[in-house]
């Protein structure tokens, strides 16, 4: 390889340095390179290996330094952090608001059903009439709403639903709360074992009168929770997209407002 072509290659390599560094030191580096090539006391092979190693190391080093200079500015970081915070709050709202609307909406028919059944029982109708069990709902599979009547001790009296052949009973703490407050709206999980999970949107009402007790109106949350999952995935996607835009935007803004010192 001729001397001229080696120098041409070095000139090309110099163009790989960051602009500010190249403008500031490019001519002096080229001069040092020429001095080295003219220096008879330095073996040519040793000099060329020095130049190659130097190029590999200093190119990486100067580009990292340039990145720190361009993107490591506190104002840039602060702006990006504020935007990331805003987008996180937005994404949380994007999930939390529809999730609450969906979950509250899941109680809608049960509120009326529990109230009606409690009224019938308070009027003295026997539980089997107040809560007619024409077809029993399988709580593990069906999405249909159902009503269950319990006596004051929490023992089932009449039920439109069964789970694994039995009428499930909510935790006694729920009855205690309803006894004190008149009504409770809960997400009830009557079954969670061996990967089988049943969750119910339940409204529990107190039954007054001569035969006090409780009425529970419920409906499977399976479909609602699937929609909640979809909302969560969309919110996550929106959050990642917003963060991506912030990263790209900060990068572009940082690049165009980079310090330009000769």
């Amino acid at each position: 390889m001729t001397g001229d072509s080696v120098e041409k290659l070095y000139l090309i390599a110099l163009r790989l340095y960051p602009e500010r560094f190249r403008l500031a030191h490019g001519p002096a580096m080229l001069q040092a390179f020429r001095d080295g090539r003219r220096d008879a006391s330095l073996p040519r092979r040793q000099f060329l290996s020095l130049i190659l190693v130097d190029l590999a190391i200093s190119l990486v080093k100067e580009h990292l330094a340039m990145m720190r200079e361009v993107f490591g500015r506190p104002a840039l970081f602060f702006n990006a952090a504020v935007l990331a915070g805003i987008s996180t709050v937005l994404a949380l709202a994007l999930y939390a608001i529809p999730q609450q609307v969906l979950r509250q909406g899941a109680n809608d028919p049960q509120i009326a059903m529990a109230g009606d059944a409690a009224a019938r029982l308070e009027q003295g109708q026997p539980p089997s009439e107040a809560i007619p069990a024409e077809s029993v709902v399988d709580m593990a599979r069906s999405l249909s709403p159902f009503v269950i009547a319990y006596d004051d001790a929490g023992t089932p009296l009449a039920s439109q639903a069964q789970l694994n052949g039995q009428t499930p009973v909510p935790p006694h703490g729920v009855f205690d709360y309803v006894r004190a407050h008149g009504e409770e709206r809960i997400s009830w999980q009557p079954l969670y074992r061996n990967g089988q999970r049943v969750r119910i949107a339940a409204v529990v009402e107190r039954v007054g009168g001569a035969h006090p007790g409780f009425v529970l109106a419920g409906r499977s949350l399976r479909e609602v929770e699937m929609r909640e999952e979809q909302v969560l995935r969309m919110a996550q996607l929106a959050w990642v997209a917003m963060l991506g835009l912030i990263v790209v935007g900060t990068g572009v803004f940082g690049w165009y407002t980079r310090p330009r010192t000769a």
Partner: protein
Amino acid sequence: MSTQPVAGIPLSAAVFAILLSLAEREKHGYQIMKDALSPEGGAVRLGPGTLYGSLDRMMRDGLVAESGVSDDERRRYYKLTALGRRALAEELERLDLAVRAGRSLGLLPHRSRS
């Protein structure tokens, strides 16, 4: 003169070699590279990229300055600043202590005073 220790001690091999080279007099890039490569200069392999990158940061830290004297517009001469001289002295002091510790541990031969 300030007695505050200079920030950045211990110095990197490249910075130390550049300061040591410039302690003698102001020099241009290739002279500094040659000095650094010699055994007395620390045998540090400084190529142009590493040299000018280091000089760039050392000028920003106030350790060296361009002298403004040049026989060729492409050749820039650099000189030590007072801070650079103090940093070099502190580094040499630190190394001297380490060498003395090495001697007392028998890791280096004792030298007789001439």
